[in-house]
């Protein structure tokens, strides 16, 4: 058994058993005509839906829409989060004033802000972008705060020794030392923004996007379309997170131990 499991090819084959069993169970449910047979889309119709969504270009449009929403939210929320996190770590009065407010805001599940934001800004794409930006904001803020607040004492001592100005200390010591955590924050922020994009698209159905398509397909009982959108979500999410991790490793290649 162990000998078998140590061979990569065998492992892949064993790994395929569960999905294969699941798919055949699925196909059987779709054709057997049970209570939920209407809901189980047979595999060929999922394939057909995929071909159709590719041909009319809506899948690509949705992927681009969701991705740009996430990246826009990452850019807005991430920038504000890093700026505020660094500022709060350097200048303590700001931390005293804003800390409690931000803490209070953080306790409410992000999605819980949707009704309030809906009242204030309507239930359109603007609100979607606000929620996505908020979801990226907090991980960026917390990590950059941590990164700057916990820079090693001796690094700062060296700056003192060399007579660095405040600006030099910031640019040459604080920022590089905090960079690993700031990038960790951005990686988390991207993952959060991606999930928030899908969630707000499902909840508000504004504009276009994978979540909007899923929600629309749900009201039309089109499980085949939902599944194609879910698979696209999974693959796109995996890809951007993976690319971001690689970018992070590349940016931190100067570090002795890659985090």
């Amino acid at each position, binding site marked *: 058994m162990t000998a078998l499991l140590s061979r990569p090819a065998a492992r892949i084959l064993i790994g395929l058993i569960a999905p294969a069993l699941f798919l055949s169970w699925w196909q059987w449910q779709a054709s057997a005509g049970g209570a939920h047979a209407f809901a189980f889309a047979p595999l060929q119709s999922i394939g057909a839906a995929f071909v159709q969504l590719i041909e009319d270009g809506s899948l690509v449009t949705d992927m681009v829409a969701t991705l740009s929403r996430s990246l826009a939210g990452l850019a807005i929320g991430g920038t504000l989060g890093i700026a505020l996190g660094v500022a709060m770590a350097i200048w303590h009065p700001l931390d005293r004033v804003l800390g409690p407010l931000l803490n209070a805001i953080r306790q*409410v599940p992000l999605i819980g802000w949707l009704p309030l934001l809906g009242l204030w800004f309507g239930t359109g794409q603007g609100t979607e972008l606000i929620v996505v930006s908020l979801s990226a904001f907090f991980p960026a803020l917390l990590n950059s705060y941590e990164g700057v607040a916990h820079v090693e004492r001796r690094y700062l001592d060296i700056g003192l020794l060399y007579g660095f100005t405040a600006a030099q200390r910031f640019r040459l010591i604080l920022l590089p030392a905090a960079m690993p955590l700031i990038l960790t924050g951005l990686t988390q922020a991207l993952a959060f923004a991606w999930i928030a994009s899908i969630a707000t698209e499902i909840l508000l159905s504004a504009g276009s996007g994978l979540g909007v398509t899923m929600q629309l397909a749900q009201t039309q*009982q089109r499980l085949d379309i939902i599944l194609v959108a879910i698979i696209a979500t999974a693959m796109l999410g995996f890809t951007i997170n993976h690319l971001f991790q690689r970018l992070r490793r590349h940016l931190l290649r100067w570090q002795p131990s890659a985090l």
Partner: protein
Amino acid sequence: MTAAALASPAVDRSRSRSSRSPLAALVAPLVLVALWQLTCLSGLFPPQVLVPPSEVGETLWSLALSGELERHVGESMFRLSLGYVIGAVAGLVFGATIALSRLAEAALSPFFLAIWQVPVIAFVPVLVIFLGIDEPFKIAIVALATFFPVALATFDGIRSVPKAWFDVARVYRTRLPDLIGRILIPATIPAVLTGMRVALTRAWVVLVAAELLAADSGIGQMMEMGRQMFRIDVVLAGVVVSGLIGFALDRGAKAIEHRAIRWKYA
């Protein structure tokens, strides 16, 4: 209660506890509420946009008196606890299975990891099609949100037990119940508890989202109805309650976690 206190609770809380009195911790929220009240009194925002905390308090009070708040909170908590228990037990069993058996790992983990790539919220449309929009759907989505973090934490926890410990146990001819009760469980419990805490937070977020989308009761539904009827006081009351619940859940789970792993630092 600064950002640092949240990010690394273990270190900072002990420090702040010794230096600050519990009264000092109340100052910041009180100032916050006072500022909110003043902003409203200044007439900067029309009452359709922002109502003062006093009015939110009144709304909360009347919701509580009429029993409506109790019903919403009760419904949400029922869904959360039932779904959470189902998801956590399933996650524990699944995580332990793929951690202990190489064959199970090879057979199940690729499928598991593939599904894990999908944000739980994206399963909402699928579950609605299969289960409708009633209780089973909400309990299922909570269970799903709980399952993945718990399963992963259990797997990691068991796999990170040093192999030498098992070797020692073998030398001493430890019987299986002792092996499980005295090595495996104590060694994995910190990781598992952390996973369960993360799962609780996520389950709560997903539940609120599911209630916003489709429910006839629950905190999320209370807020959504408030929005549709332009009752900003009800929406804000819901925001406050869901924040308090989220805070209480997180703090409660952290307290349990600290208590359970005390021996580690003793």
